């Protein structure tokens, strides 16, 4: 033991490892403190500080049943959305683990295309589909169906839109767990006489339970903070708490009360997370679990949800890479031959329907972008490129695109630098308070974006960062950091540390060993992190609403203005361009990651 430790001369770093780790973490910590925690604290302080120091705002919030009811409605709606995601996401995730290599790219494309598509674009697509004389209505009419369900501007529309946004999160989370399930247990059950249904309910389902609970929690929490989708699809008939907050801030200039509602919203989310972790024993957001998991169910990952969120955020492309490279079928993970009975067909059917559900809105928007008419109509009348011309000739659109590209590039760079160093510290470092800091690092994912937006807005206005490319980039970096941390730390955990140690034994300085050995191995994860930073920023539409100015606005913000004021096919042309870009990014990232996954497998296999 002593011999091994002396492979390099004992240095100051080795004598004070804590200090080194904490110094490395400092830029990240300062950044979050300055641009996230402090603004959040200042904003929350207003809930007791305005109009005068008192609990007036909380008394108002709790004194009138309205706001508690809206909170309750928000929770109910989010619950429905999470349940919906789970019910239709489960068969899809199962199919993904079982599909033959040649089907996998198609399945993954269906799941991931919307994942990379702007939330605004998708809301817009659903308006087109759900409205009267929209796609569904037209189809029902041509089939002479006598009844016309009200879908748009009602809860149904909001649920459909939100499920569409959140489903990929659920599928990826479930997939992450299901692909690790050893099917020999199922076979064992069946060979011992269990009929397929019993084998499923008693063996497979319990084994996939961690995926269900984590997926449910992630979609539920993300749903609670939704703002754009209910505002666009609910048409005033669906009230969510984040919309109330926006109204208080913006129309009533009642910042104290808006802040109190925000505190309540954050408190609710925290309570939900804690309750859920207690009840279902989820290792959510690195908060830890009370009970040891069955070792066979989940490989001993440091934190299930951590890894899962990494999967669902970053490893989305890793999985796709798997699909593109054609991962070798693992006997234990796939049924040798699909049991072609009604269960199998039902699963396939649901999966096919879900894939349609995911992809059709995107295709419809693409079709309508070539319409020759100046209003929305489906099927589109005539063919024309005028709406593409309108985009490329429109000064406002071009300017916003330019701003968005610059902001996204800056965000990608800043978030990958700050996030990667933090990830390194979180994976390798040993110092007190690490787990607390880790949760703080993931906080921007947990705090609803509307709250973050308002807090950051107030702070940035003082710093003259409103309507400024740097302002957007700094704020978007806050939102992108958790994703980068999750992706890079997942990659770092996969790296065999002994390789780096070998380099140091051979005389390399630890820093040099890291750069020469480990960095190339995690380079694809860094690239994925940068891409996610880019997309997070490019698609960010809540903070952008606040931080935009007359001269500097991002693309999602201009689209939002356009959607509220008038709906013409220009926006579908932009949507189609964005989807095209998403596909491009998806393919590029898959190729990047695919190449490395191959290499990693070769190098890692013998050691593991």
């Amino acid at each position, binding site marked *: 033991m002593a011999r091994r430790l002396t492979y390099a001369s004992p240095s100051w770093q080795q004598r004070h490892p804590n200090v080194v780790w904490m110094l490395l973490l400092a830029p990240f910590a300062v950044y979050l403190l300055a641009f996230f925690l402090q603004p959040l604290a200042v904003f929350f302080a207003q809930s007791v500080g305005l109009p005068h120091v008192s609990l007036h705002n909380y008394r108002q919030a709790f004194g009138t*049943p*309205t706001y508690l*009811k*809206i909170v309750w*409605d928000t929770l109910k709606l989010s619950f429905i959305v999470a349940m919906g995601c789970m019910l239709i996401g489960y068969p899809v995730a199962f199919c993904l683990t079982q599909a033959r290599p040649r089907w996998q790219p198609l399945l993954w494309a269906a799941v991931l295309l919307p994942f990379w598509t702007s939330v605004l674009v998708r809301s817009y697509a659903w308006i087109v589909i759900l*409205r*009267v*004389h929209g796609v569904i209505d037209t189809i029902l009419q041509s089939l002479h169906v006598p009844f016309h369900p009200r879908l748009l*501007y009602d809860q149904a529309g909001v649920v459909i839109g939100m499920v569409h946004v959140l489903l990929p999160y659920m599928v990826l989370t479930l997939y992450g767990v299901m692909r690790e399930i050893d099917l020999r247990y199922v076979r064992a059950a069946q060979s011992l006489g269990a009929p397929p249904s019993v084998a499923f309910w008693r063996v497979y389902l319990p084994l996939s339970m961690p995926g269900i609970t984590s997926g449910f929690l992630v979609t539920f929490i993300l749903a609670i903070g939704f703002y754009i989708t209910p505002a666009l699809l609910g*048409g*005033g*008939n669906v*009230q969510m708490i984040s919309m*109330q907050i*926006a109204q208080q*801030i*913006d*129309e*009533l*200039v009642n*910042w104290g009360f808006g802040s109190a509602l925000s505190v309540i919203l954050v408190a609710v989310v925290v309570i939900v997370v804690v309750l859920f972790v207690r009840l279902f024993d989820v290792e959510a957001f690195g908060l830890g679990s009370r009970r040891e998991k069955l070792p066979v169910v989940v490989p001993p990952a440091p934190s299930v949800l951590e890894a899962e969120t990494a999967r669902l955020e970053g490893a989305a492309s890793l999985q796709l890479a798997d699909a593109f490279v054609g991962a070798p079928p693992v006997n234990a993970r796939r049924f040798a031959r699909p049991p072609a009975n009604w269960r199998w067909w039902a699963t396939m059917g649901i999966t096919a329907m879900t894939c349609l559900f995911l992809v059709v809105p995107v295709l419809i928007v693409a079709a309508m972008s070539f319409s020759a008419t100046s209003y929305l109509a489906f099927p589109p009348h005539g063919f024309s490129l005028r709406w593409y011309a309108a985009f490329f000739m429109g*000064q*406002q659109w*071009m*300017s916003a*695109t*330019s*701003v968005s*590209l*610059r902001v*996204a*590039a*800056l965000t990608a*760079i800043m978030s990958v630098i700050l996030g990667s160093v933090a990830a390194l510290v979180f994976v390798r470092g040993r110092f007190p308070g690490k787990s607390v800091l880790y949760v703080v690092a993931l906080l921007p994912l947990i705090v609803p974006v509307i709250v973050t937006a308002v807090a950051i*807005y*107030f702070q940035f*206005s*003082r*710093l*003259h960062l*409103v*309507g*400024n*490319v*740097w302002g957007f*980039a700094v704020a978007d970096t806050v939102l992108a950091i958790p994703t980068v941390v999750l992706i890079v730390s997942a990659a770092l955990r996969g790296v065999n540390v002994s390789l780096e140690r070998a380099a140091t034994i051979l005389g390399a300085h630890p820093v040099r060993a890291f750069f020469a050995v480990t960095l190339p191995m995690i380079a694809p994860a860094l690239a994925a992190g940068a891409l996610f930073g880019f997309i997070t920023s490019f698609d960010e539409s809540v903070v952008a*609403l*606040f931080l935009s*100015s*007359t*001269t500097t606005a991002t693309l999602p*913000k*201009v689209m*939002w*203005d*356009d959607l*509220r*004021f*008038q*709906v013409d096919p220009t926006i579908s042309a932009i949507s189609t361009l964005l989807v095209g870009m998403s596909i491009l990014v998806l393919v590029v990232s898959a190729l990047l990651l695919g190449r490395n996954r191959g290499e990693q497998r070769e190098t890692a296999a013998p050691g593991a």
Partner: protein
Amino acid sequence: MHSSQTTRREFLRTASAAAAAAATLSAIRPRVAEAAGQLVITDPGGEWQAAAKEAFYMPYQQATGTGINFAARPSLALGQLKAMVESNNVQWDVTELADYLMFRAGKSGLLEPIKYQGVDTSGVLKDAMMQYGVGVDAYATVMAYSTKKWPAGKGPKTWADFWDVKRFPGRRAMTGIGYGPLEFALLADGVPKDKLYPLDVKRALKKMDEIKPYVSIWWTTGAQQAQLMLDGEVDLIQGWSGRLYSGITQGAPFHMEWNQGMYQWEGWVIPKGAAHAAEAQKFIDFAMQPKQQAIFAEHMPYGPSNQKAFSFIPKERRTVLPTYGPNLEKLFRADAEWLADNLDSLTASWTQWHAG
């Protein structure tokens, strides 16, 4: 844009441009940001902006040589205004607000008072000249009904008729935003239009209970109103005259009823601490001229505040404008100041009723 205050902003902008160049991901150069501008004016964007550009921005630029840098204001107007003023970083010289928000913002210390000297206001409606803002155009909230259901003139004429679901059965749409259609509920309940304020909220909501089951849609945006008419989603709608008219001109078979409608002003305000407040005042004076307002009214079906504008407006166009004499006498003015003072409780009551 050229005051010493903005040095930091300029610096950051330069720095950001440099960094972006380094990032080499921006192929397109920004154009709007670099546009020469002395006055920064924000407005609701869309068609409104297109009309304002023709009526006010371009003519002012030509008449004075002062550049105007205009852009759509975020839908989050007052929140942004407050943050600007409180952080001493006021970026707008002029913006556009609805009248009750003028009072709301003005009383919160977010606006400069308007000066009414040095401009001929003889033709301007008195109630358009407010302490913190100038009404440039009036919008009316009225009812419209499907002529497929009732021939024009045979449909509901009063809010009591609108509430009468036996005489006028059909699907209804009403406003779901702000504090809802409380004034109309009171009118339907028999309150005379000069005795509406202060609003008896309890009585209004009780009357709302009656119609609630028959309202199939509570609209939240302007664009939605015309779309509902075009799609034939409703038979009766309470909405903004400009939007209803736009639905009718696009082919929706509807008739608009001015009787017992409510009008409100929207117009210019100067944010407190605006960099070019004096120039902003000159622009506002310019925009009050009859000719300018006539051009605006030709593009947007909203009523000019300067009655002299009507001499420049073709006769058939006048009939769709809320402030045209024969229309105006059927309307009543929403008490913007009272609404501003009571907006919190009104909104809370409405939200409670609407969510309940």
